[in-house]
């Protein structure tokens, strides 16, 4: 049994996988003769993960109503996934939009309580949370706003811990908690309730070296979103523009592991040094071909990284 187990964030498949099971292959293929049929249902998509060697998955916040509607309950979804070889739905992604304003805290906490309950019922271990509004229209945050967001995160984290779930600050290059105040925000939060998930591409785009960041914050970093990028320290006007996450020209921010410039071997050496154990997740939202990206990422892990630490 190795030290690392691999999970995959499922947001690259689209906002919502359409069906639990596509009943009739021909219904979608005949007359179209394309490959879309391979992307329409959880049944196949879960099996792709297992086939590539990913035994864990993560779900986005917008999956909550879908899961309840189509699988009856989060446990119903987790059981469906287990039947197809997924060991665990390891966690979820949520948002704390508006947390920089205390007036919004009741709504932010209510939304995240739903996500905490959802994550627990899925059998997840962690919840990764964008800690405030997007930068466009909201940033930069004042010290007081940052304090408000940190207090809100601490409360979310406390509630999560009550259910045995670790709440992790998830940095986004387009979040109001941005390059100039991310570290201050980490320091403002309580280590008991607020861990940090190192998203290797997001921090690179903001101008942080992810390897150095792990070295500095390894005690706070309980989880990883591993993705590659070829953009380091993007200019403010690009990173903080309206809807920056989906580039107006359609260019990619994120690449499969090994497709960009992130020093993953360097990171793996530190994982070994600090003897990190447990689930780590790959996330490659925005890829034009999720299946190709899934397989390429795992091949890179197996051939380039696992020899360093596994």
């Amino acid at each position: 049994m190795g030290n690392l187990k691999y999970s995959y964030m499922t947001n690259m498949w689209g906002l919502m996988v359409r069906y639990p099971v596509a009943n009739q292959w021909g219904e979608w293929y005949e007359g179209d003769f394309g490959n879309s049929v391979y992307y329409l249902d959880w049944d196949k998509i879960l099996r792709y993960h297992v086939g590539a060697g990913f035994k864990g998955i993560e779900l986005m916040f917008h999956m909550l109503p879908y899961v309840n509607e189509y699988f009856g309950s989060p446990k119903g979804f987790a059981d469906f996934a287990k039947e197809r070889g997924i060991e665990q739905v390891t966690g979820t992604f949520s948002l704390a939009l508006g947390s920089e304003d205390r007036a919004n805290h009741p709504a932010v906490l209510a939304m995240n309580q739903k996500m905490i309950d959802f994550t627990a019922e899925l059998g997840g271990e962690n919840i990764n949370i964008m800690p405030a509004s997007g930068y466009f229209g909201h940033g930069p945050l004042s010290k007081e706003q940052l304090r408000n967001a940190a207090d809100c995160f601490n409360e979310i984290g406390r509630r999560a811990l009550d259910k045995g779930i670790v709440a992790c600050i998830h940095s986004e290059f387009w979040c109001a908690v941005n390059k100039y105040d991310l570290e201050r925000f980490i320091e403002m939060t309580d280590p008991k309730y607020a861990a940090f998930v190192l998203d290797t591409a997001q921090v690179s785009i903001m101008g942080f070296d992810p390897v150095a960041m792990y070295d500095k914050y390894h005690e706070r970093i309980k989880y990883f979103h591993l993705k590659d990028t070829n953009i380091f320290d993007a200019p403010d006007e690009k990173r903080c523009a309206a809807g920056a996450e989906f580039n107006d020209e359609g260019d990619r921010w994120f690449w499969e592991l090994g497709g960009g410039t992130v020093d993953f071997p360097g990171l793996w050496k530190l994982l070994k040094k600090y003897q990190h154990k447990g689930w780590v997740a790959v996330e490659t939202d925005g890829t034009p071909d999720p299946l190709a990206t899934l397989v390429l990422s795992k091949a890179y892990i197996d051939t380039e990284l696992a020899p360093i630490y596994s």
Partner: protein
Amino acid sequence: MKIACSLETVELKSSGPSKLRLLSKGYWIEFFQWVAAAGFTAVELPYNPFNNDPLAFEIGRCGVPISLAAVNVKYGSPKQFRQKLAEFGIADVSGVHVQASDALAEILATDGDTARYFGLLESMGREAVGFLADLGSTDLVVSPTPPMGLVERCFGGGREGWEAGFLDLTAAVLNKLAREAKAKGVRLSVRNEFWSLLRGTALDAFLAKLDKEILYSPDLSHLAIAGADPVAVLKAHQGRLASVRFNDTCFEDVVGNYRTSHPEIPIQGAQRVFCDLGDGSVDLRGAYQALAAAGFDGWIVFDSRMTLDVPRALLRMRWRIDHAIAAKA
């Protein structure tokens, strides 16, 4: 008759290769070029002003022209958006389509207080009227109820006859909106869905509750799935039509899927509800001829909902319009 293409040909919510790119402005810029290349010079826009519903939040923030806020942020203003369309050869916006489902989804995503529903429906409609006026367009098309399975769960509570009260309140909101819209040069019409409380010909009785100035914008596939004859419906309402949605299906709802809260994503049996225009069994040519015979001079809005290949669907639509649906005998 005037011809438009619906942006609902692009299915945003479900999975597929390159699906997240559909959320970027870049995709829509290219899409409008495809639309024009396929010979369409007008479009109908979906409209959803909400952002607490998670899917609405994702769709509304990066470039899909789905609301006033989205258009202002990514295209400058409704006027500048029209100018951008015109640059591509799209001269008109035939109308804007709002769905009552989106108001209920917003509530379910937040506090779940369904007492807010009719107020939210009204505010959504009012915002869409303003957007239309800013665009210089005139048709607000409303899908008047969420799926009946969802409405029953949220409003029915097992009570006998609750539907009548729900529809009375819906009618009151629509009548109020129509009067406000008229003052801004916008006219209101209602659209049918096979899953709504007003499925098929049930909409006929509801129309009688509405002010005469509120028109009907039938959707042919939805009529067919609900078991109504689309051509007969067009003939019956020929004096009250605003626009007509031409699309296609061969879906037979043999398991009563219309009663569920997710009717367009069936779990049992056949699952492909809509197909590319011309691939299904709707009598599109008969419908076109019925409208021509009645001297209809409104918009025909074409779509291929849930197509698996948008550019191909656009080209297929153009060929089938020219060579089958509207071809001279």
